[in-house]
């Protein structure tokens, strides 16, 4: 399957202030999103997953490497970005913050339609539509039916789930090919969560959308994602299909993340000590080694790789192939 949105050797560096070293938000990432695929990008706060998503959207410029959409590398001129952003749309975490409280639902959804002159786009294609038709179509695709009943509502009159549907309708209105959703349900109630996730699945089926979901929630990934990429300190450390990665994780970091998902009757959780380390001081060797349970527990030493863990940098994981993990333990790295 060819990829629609891809990153190659992508790096994003934020300059250090007051003489501090630079912070590497994204430190060498290869990633492919295929048409109609749902990819979950998971990791702890501060691991660079949101920076990666912003760079894929063209909101952040890479310091090295490239982002390509449909085979064309992104350029950062105004007109290119404008047409690119029609194709790749962002859905934010907090729908209350993402909507203007003084704009009606109609105005919120129509904004993108006006910016991207969607009515003219449709007329050129020989379809006679009005702006109201497009707003209504987007709202009903997002599950707000009948759409006309919502036109004049303001965000405060809607429930949390309805607000998130309006945000999604705003993204759908410009007819994108890719949605990038940053924690789309983490600020929503448990009962609404499933409804919004079901909507993302339905959009993939009906409109063939690709979705990149940025989340720290492995249950969400299990619910909807085809592929999972696990990120740690700016790098992808494990990637594969959801079944492979979540049922048989290869990287000790993925194993630890899975073990702390709150569930009953599970194995003893591996609670990693400390927070995600500082991106200005990336550890040598495997970047996870200071917190790695396999190294601290002696598993790495028994396999004779503890020296590599501490000193030898790992290769970047390729964007395609089966389940692969960036780990020195035997059998984890893909054969080179």
């Amino acid at each position, binding site marked *: 399957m060819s990829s629609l949105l891809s990153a190659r050797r992508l790096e994003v560096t934020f300059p250090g202030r007051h003489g501090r070293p630079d912070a590497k938000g994204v430190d060498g990432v290869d990633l492919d999103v295929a048409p109609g695929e749902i990819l979950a990008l998971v990791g702890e706060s501060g691991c660079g997953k949101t920076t990666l998503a912003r760079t894929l959207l063209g909101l952040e410029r890479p310091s090295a490497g490239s982002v390509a959409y449909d085979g064309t590398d992104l350029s950062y001129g105004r007109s290119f970005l404008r047409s690119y952003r029609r194709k790749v749309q962002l859905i934010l975490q907090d729908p209350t913050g993402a909507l203007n409280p003084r704009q009606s639902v109609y105005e919120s959804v129509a904004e993108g339609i006006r910016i991207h002159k969607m009515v003219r786009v449709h007329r050129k294609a020989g379809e006679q539509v009005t702006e109201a038709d497009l707003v209504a179509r987007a709202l009903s695709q997002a599950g707000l039916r009948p759409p006309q009943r919502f036109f004049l509502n303001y965000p405060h009159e809607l429930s949390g789930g309805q607000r998130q549907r309006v945000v999604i309708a705003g993204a759908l209105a410009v007819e994108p090919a890719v949605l990038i959703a940053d924690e789309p349900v983490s600020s929503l109630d448990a009962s609404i969560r499933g409804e919004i996730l079901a909507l993302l699945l339905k959009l993939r089926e009906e409109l063939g959308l690709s979705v990149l979901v940025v989340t720290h929630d492995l249950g969400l990934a*299990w619910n909807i994602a085809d592929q999972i990429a696990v990120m740690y300190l700016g790098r992808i450390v494990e990637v594969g299909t959801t079944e492979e990665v979540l049922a048989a994780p290869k990287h000790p970091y993925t194993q630890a993340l899975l073990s*702390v998902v709150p569930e009953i009757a599970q194995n003893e959780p591996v609670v990693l000590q400390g927070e995600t380390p500082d991106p200005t001081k990336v550890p040598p060797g495997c970047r996870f080694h200071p917190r790695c349970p396999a190294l601290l527990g002696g598993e790495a030493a028994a396999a004779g790789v503890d020296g590599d863990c501490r000193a030898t940098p790992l290769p970047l994981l390729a964007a395609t192939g089966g389940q692969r993990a960036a780990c020195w333990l035997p059998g984890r790295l893909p054969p080179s």
Partner: protein
Amino acid sequence: MSPPVEDEAPPPLLEVIDLHVSYPTASGPLPAVRGVSFSVDAGESVGIAGESGCGKSTIAATVLRLQPKGASVEGSVLVNGQDTQRMPWGQLRAVRWGDAAIVFQGALHSLNPVQRIEDQIAEPIRLHDESVGKGAAATRVGQLLESVGLPSGRGSAYPHQLSGGQKQRVMIAMALACRPQLILADEPTTALDVMVQAQVLSVLTDLVYDLGLGLLLISHDLSVLGTTCDRVLVMYAGRVVEHGPAASLFDHPLHPYGGALAAAFPRVGDPRARFAPVGLPGDPPDPQALPSGCPFHPRCALATEECTTTDPPLEPMAPCREVACLHADESRDMKLLLARSRLQAARPAGSATAP
């Protein structure tokens, strides 16, 4: 002086009896809590689950009489046998922090940004016991930080120098400052990611085990309560609709609403949850215009004619379990319930209704 011979068991740490709380609004009183009773013993952790607006945070605030001014409260809230709603102001001040302390929702913003955290933790200690000197308070702050897994040297940091999980642990350390017997934690891990959530929850459960504290943990995430608590109450529209031991409630919910909450956070690896997120159609009811009969019936897969007229009380069902549902027998079969809610999830998503 030796205490008198006890002829009965000591009262539970926290006992809430038929609590009703309503808030005044321009359009009349808004009933937030409608008759809730439960208790928390020493060394026990009790969870309250439910979605936004079900009244769970109101309960936590009411325990320490922190409800907004003008709220009308009926029923009683006994902390160590003393009613916090009726005690004099001076005694209430001693009960707050001293008997029971609260860790708030959104605690990440509750720290003073321009004060070192050691000074913020020392403040309630010295306010509550004037005999504690500066040095003794500093020692105690160091112990408290270590008890939540932070090095005591971190006390000199300002809040912006700490990560979210560290700030949340500082809030827990602060709650422990005056050696309370009861901790009320309102969504303590909601803004945190999984690994930090696991760290904070393990700090809380260790405190319950090591110090024999009582813990009232409030969350919308039933899976968090399922792993952390001994018992769980599920609230809907200001009432308890289900109550039971955490593990059995999470695995075999009896109330359809409990079932929906349990299914919302799927078990990773469960083939039934793959590409089948389970949601609950519709929105939580307006507390000022509750549906007739069982308030859950408009969203319930099992609702029948009878549900629209009869509001079932909370009644014992299986051993140690209580449920308020006319169809609890049917919903006991989790498979049936899951199948039905999945049918609903697969329905065209036109379920959202206009306000």
